[in-house]
């Protein structure tokens, strides 16, 4: 009973906060509602027993991605009139994307119902090893059966990251102030300050 209640609570909140995300007038509010949606999605994951995925959802999406998103949106200088005009212009495109997503959902669920693709082999060696925690199951799968796929995903991400850094770091190095931390740390007070006792009215030679 309590599970059904929790499911409907989380599912309802996901849909409601998703709707408010696109209805909210203020972009910052939109991002915050999106975070609520993520959080409730994590709640649903816990309910189906995928607590590792739930925690990753919160750590990665809510804790890192959405923070950066919020960061950017907060810095925006928002002109609401322009935003409204853009809404009308982009509305057909948005509807088209929504229709594509809906079609994919229907197709995916239909295919799953039809049982055309057997996810996991009949022998069950891709299925979760029952009786162990799902961290161990995911680890055994990622680092065993799907090792090369996993590693290649990692390499693609690494290349993308380095590419982004190179693209944004093109300016000449000499133009930017470079700090030599070792030199800063090695500096002693005696090199930077002098202690004198000048005569009154004489001043000191610098």
């Amino acid at each position: 009973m309590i599970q059904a209640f929790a499911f409907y609570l989380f599912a309802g909140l996901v849909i409601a906060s998703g709707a408010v995300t696109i209805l909210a007038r203020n972009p910052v509010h939109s991002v915050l509602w999106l975070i609520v949606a993520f959080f409730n999605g994590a709640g649903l994951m816990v309910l189906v027993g995928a607590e590792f995925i739930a925690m990753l959802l919160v750590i990665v999406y809510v804790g890192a991605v959405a923070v950066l998103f919020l960061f950017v949106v907060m810095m925006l200088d928002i002109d609401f009139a322009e935003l409204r005009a853009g809404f009308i212009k982009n509305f057909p495109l948005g509807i088209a994307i929504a229709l594509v997503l809906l079609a994919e959902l229907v197709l995916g669920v239909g295919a799953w119902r039809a049982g055309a693709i057997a996810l996991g082999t009949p022998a069950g060696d891709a299925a979760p090893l029952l009786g162990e925690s799902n961290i161990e199951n995911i680890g055994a799968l990622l680092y065993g059966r799907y090792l090369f796929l996993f590693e290649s995903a990692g390499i693609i991400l690494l290349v993308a990251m380095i590419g982004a850094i190179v693209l944004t770091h093109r300016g000449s190095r000499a133009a930017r102030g470079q700090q030599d931390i070792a030199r800063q740390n090695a500096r002693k007070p005696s090199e930077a300050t002098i202690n004198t006792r000048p005569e009154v009215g004489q001043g000191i030679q610098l």
Partner: protein
Amino acid sequence: MIPVFEDWGMSYETAWFVSTIAGILLIALPLMLAVAMIIYVDRKVWAAMALRRGPNVVGPFGLLQSFADGLKVFLQETIVPSAANKGLFLIAPIVTFTLALAAWAVIPFNSGAVLADINVGLLYILAISSLGVYGVVMSGWASNSKYPFFSAMRAAAQMISYEVSIGFILICVVLWAGTFNMNGIIEAQRGHGLGIVNGFVFNLLLFPMWVMFLISSLAETARAPFDLTEAESELVAGYQTEYSSMSFALFWLGEYANVLLMCALNAILFFGGWLPPLEWAPLYWIPGWLWLFAKIFFFFFIFSWVKATVPRFRYDQLMRLGWKVFLPLSLVFVVLVSGWLMFTRYGEAI
């Protein structure tokens, strides 16, 4: 606790409900009391190191100072700036405070004495502490004021940066313990050093991790010397500038509850949590939660000691320490620890 309530004639569901509520109260109420007392301790330690007396007027030795302060802010008027985004402005301190309490759900106080004994306990802590930045960012933005906004930007960058290296440090501990469960991590430390000392810190590969974790936890809770989010010389009071009365007090309580949580994590991950320091039977006569409290208190003393003695970092130095020193070092240690374990523990598997 559930069997106790079942003995009183409740059904399992009711017993579960009642015992969970009782567990939450048993953690939250003493935690609030501990926060009040720890603020007093912080001020006393700070005063002693500055050769002052510290709070000594309210109650014996000034022990009731925090309660007097709490009553004072409770009676004040909540001022909401007219340009502020009202809803977010009022929600932000509540978010900070709630998250600070929520993380304590997985902290074990004794063998089995934990509210939620989940097998992803450490990930849960990481998730909750990564959420902590929202309270600060929301308050900075909703205040619609210059300095709080700067502070919020700083806080967001700082907390994300140090979370990355904390994540790698935790991975080293988890690799050695072989579990994400908090009680499992503590049990793995039993007799870790030469079979007599309890704690991962007495391990040549994990000791540097502890040093980095201690420094990162100072940065993660924005305590001195990393308190750049509330650097009063440049940002007035940081993200709390526009706050008053109870909404300010919630930030205050949440911050200290987070500091206590980080002290508890230091104790649990590296110093054996509720285990006594030495594997010696008479030390087990003292209950486990007392050992945990003693360790938390010890780490809190280190925190206030650092606060009283170390000058504030510059912001670029803070970022450099996080990204160019801690991140590569912790990555290297992940490789070292996993390599060592592969060599000694899981060697026969390959």
